[in-house]
């Protein structure tokens, strides 16, 4: 991997991690309403896949969606503004953490319904096919969503129509509180792809190089008009299902220690240095730049006016 790619992947992952730390802090300060779901631990997946996407390619995301937004080049200030219920937020305070969309960058939205985005990405891929463009769509979803009906119906449709879509299943080991071992009788979710007649690839979702490589092939295949791919990335969620989850379904050792043992951002830092792609000083400089951008984003959000009250029905319908 060349230096520029490696450092960009690192920057994106580090940005996601810092965003999650910072939003957790803001939540603790009672500045965020509702709930947030941290993507910490899964950064390599969004970064590795979205590195291959253009602004006119589409993604659908999940309730754990901050990472996908950032990897699809969302503006941090507008993301924080959304979390803080400000007019400058991506959804002007109407959506919040679970519904950030940025249609200008092809982000068709995070989704509070598990598996809700899978058919929508499939439909976006249908648009590309119908209009004869080389755009691709990516559905990000978790292991939990792989057991929803939308997974089955969408993968089958995409396969029979050879749609340019990637189904990226982020196996973070838990569907809310249910461990994957109790939700699947198979060890390898990617094997399901065979039943739909599409390639299925299982990848180490902790290693951004591996994700980047697998996604490169799947995106190229989609752009060539050869159809969909299912990618299952084995990963791990550092935090509970949501901010404040008491995590009664996990051991003390896991709650306290596993985030250190499974850290794709620290891994990337290590191999970038070991492979001689960048010095510690260069990586530190990236960290400082990311942290500064983050504070700029938070400051922007905090300085933004509160979202203006809802005008009905002007906002509900495009025409009325």
């Amino acid at each position, binding site marked *: 991997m060349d230096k520029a790619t490696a450092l960009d992947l690192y920057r994106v992952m580090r940005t996601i991690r810092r965003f999650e730390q910072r939003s957790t802090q803001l939540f603790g300060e009672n500045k965020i309403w509702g709930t947030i779901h941290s993507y910490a631990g899964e950064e390599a997946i969004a970064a590795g896949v979205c590195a291959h996407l253009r602004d006119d390619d589409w993604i659908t995301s999940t309730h754990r969606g901050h990472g996908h937004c950032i990897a699809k080049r969302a503006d941090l200030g507008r993301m924080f503004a959304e979390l803080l219920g400000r007019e400058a937020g*991506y959804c002007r305070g109407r959506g919040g953490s679970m519904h950030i*969309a940025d249609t200008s960058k092809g982000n068709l939205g995070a989704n509070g319904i598990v598996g809700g985005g899978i058919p*929508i990405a499939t*439909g976006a891929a249908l*648009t590309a096919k*119908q209009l004869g463009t080389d755009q691709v769509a990516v559905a990000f979803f978790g292991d939990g969503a792989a057991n929803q009906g*939308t997974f089955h119906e*969408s993968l*089958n449709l995409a396969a029979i129509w050879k749609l340019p879509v990637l189904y990226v299943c982020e196996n973070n080991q838990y569907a809310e509180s249910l461990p994957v071992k109790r939700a699947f009788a198979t060890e390898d979710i990617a094997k399901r792809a065979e039943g739909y007649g599409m390639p299925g690839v299982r990848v180490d979702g902790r290693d951004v190089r591996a994700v980047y490589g697998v996604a490169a092939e799947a995106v190229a295949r989609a752009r060539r008009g050869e159809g969909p791919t299912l990618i299952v990335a084995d990963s791990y969620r550092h935090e509970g299902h949501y901010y404040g989850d008491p995590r009664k379904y996990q051991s003390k050792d896991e709650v306290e220690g596993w985030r250190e043992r499974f850290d794709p951002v620290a891994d990337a830092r290590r191999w970038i240095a070991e492979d001689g792609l960048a010095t510690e000083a260069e990586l530190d400089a990236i960290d400082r730049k990311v942290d500064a951008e983050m504070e700029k984003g938070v400051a922007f959000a905090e300085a933004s006016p509160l979202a203006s009250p809802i005008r009905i029905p002007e906002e509900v319908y495009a*025409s009325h």
Partner: protein
Amino acid sequence: MQATETRTGVATREMFYNEALNDALRGEMRRDDRVLVIGEDIAEHGGAFQVTAGLLDEFGPTRVRQTPISEIGIVGAGVGAALTGLRPVVELMYVDFAGLAMDQILNQAAQNRFMFGGQARVPLVVRTQGGSGRGNAAQHSKSLEAWFTHVPGLKVVMPATPADAKGLLTASIRDDDPVMFIEHKLLYRTKGQVPEGEHLVPLGVADVKRRGKDLTIVSWSREVLFALEAATKLAADGVDAEVIDLRTLVPLDKDAVLSSVRRTHRLLVLHEAVKRGGYGAEIAATIAEEAFDDLDAPPRRLAGLETPIPYAQHLEKSVVPQVEDIVRVAKEMLS
């Protein structure tokens, strides 16, 4: 079929309701490459009620996308396609199957625009049909429009005549919001004069199907035909009923109902869907709130019994309002 000329100079042709819908689809697909139809049995078979008959021959399999039996998958694909630049018309064969697709209708299509702060448009039409009268029993005969009227973000359209079917479907396809377009299975083989060429009926405009001065009957879909038949019978007994066809439940043409009730001073809301929680309650409550002093009698609702639709023909008829029921209730209101 013979072409005729209306007073306004628009050429019309007698058509069945399903032919009028087909005419609308064909017209919009010719006019706009982004329009495509997606659904089960819609290609060679022409749709369960022949609404898409012949479209495959003219537009080919990429614009007439026949699908596996995957209701949430195809409605969801319609949402995604609509969000990204197409204008899909998805056919749900029976409104009773909406339960299988409901998340994509309720949580996705209806809410994307609002939830994303106005960034999104979802120009999706879900064409479906409901109603009883064909012995299809409880899982293929429901009238579920009230479900959809309860969801901000959806528009709900229910044409009663061939001309309105064509004009409203055309307008729905050109609309930038998700539309639940609910046909009635017993209307497909009803005939009427339909304007040829481009014909648009704007959403949110009710139609006074019969002028009258003694009471206002507000209805939609197949019951409009029953109301007109009842009005003819009532006229013979000296009762002059006005019949308003809402045509679109959302947006609601409240003014049309209000101005009628202010003239007739009596309101009867009539629908096939079960009475409890039905859209008739919304109309009756609206009139009670806004025109109470104009009323000479309490608003009445005549609607389906609170049961699933039974199979046998005589039982099926017994649970939804029939012409004689309308005549009886109207007379009660005037006595």
